[in-house]
């Protein structure tokens, strides 16, 4: 029986390692064939910004890895609208994450679901294991 796992990302990238090491957990979780959902809220929404370039700080730019989530069958990615708005961002500022639906002739479909706090609360309530980073 697959369990419903949710990983909640609340921290900005680079300032701390949580974003990077959370992504490592998420990718491993895919191998266990669980139902995996990701949330980006609070400063976690900054993890998905386009155009990250870490040349000037000597750290590894791990943002391209997010685009691989679809290949790992991770297609339920929730972004809290309120967090995005408070930061003056829109979905256009974030990476466009997709997955291929093999039941629909490998059509590319959006992985990202923009949800309100209230909608997010309902999704969270439905989970069985929650790990917040």
């Amino acid at each position, binding site marked *: 029986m697959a*369990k419903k*796992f949710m990983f909640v990302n609340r921290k900005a990238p680079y300032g701390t*390692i*949580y974003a990077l*090491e959370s992504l*490592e*957990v998420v990718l*491993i*979780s895919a*191998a*266990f064939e*669980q139902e995996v959902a990701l949330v980006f809220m609070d400063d976690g929404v900054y993890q998905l910004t386009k155009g990250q370039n870490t040349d000037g700080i000597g750290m590894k730019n791990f943002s391209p890895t997010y685009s691989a989530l679809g290949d790992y069958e991770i297609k339920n990615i929730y972004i809290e609208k309120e967090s995005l708005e408070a930061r003056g961002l829109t979905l256009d500022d974030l990476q466009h994450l997709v997955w291929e639906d093999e039941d629909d002739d490998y059509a590319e479909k959006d992985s990202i679901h923009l949800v309100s706090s209230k909608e997010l609360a309902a999704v969270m309530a439905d989970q069985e*294991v929650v*790990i*917040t980073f």
Partner: protein
Amino acid sequence: MKLSIQINEGPYQHQAADSAYQFTKAALAKGHEIFRVFFYHDGVNNATRLAIPPQDDRNITKQWTELQKEHELDLVVCIAAAQRRGLLDEDEAKRQGKDANNIAEGFRISGLGQLIEAGIEADRLVVFGD
């Protein structure tokens, strides 16, 4: 009930390791089973046997080692996080050509999959961090 614990911060700097220890002791005292304690992020630093805390303070690593002995706890240190931060067992030190190792008795180093397994197998996962 079967519980798993995750610890994200090193000893002393944050209360996480202390809170996790107090919680684990209380859970065991109430007859619950601890399926696994998983050390992630800086949490891997709890597993060093080289610490020498002041005499009038607690020795966090030793507390875990003793609790492990008494209850046969499964204390797992994430290998990827441990390599980044310099926590090694004897085998790993040899394999990586390092001249020393520093892991304490009662801890074992393993993969991140053990955390997912801890989440699957236990009835509850409780995370302690910053």
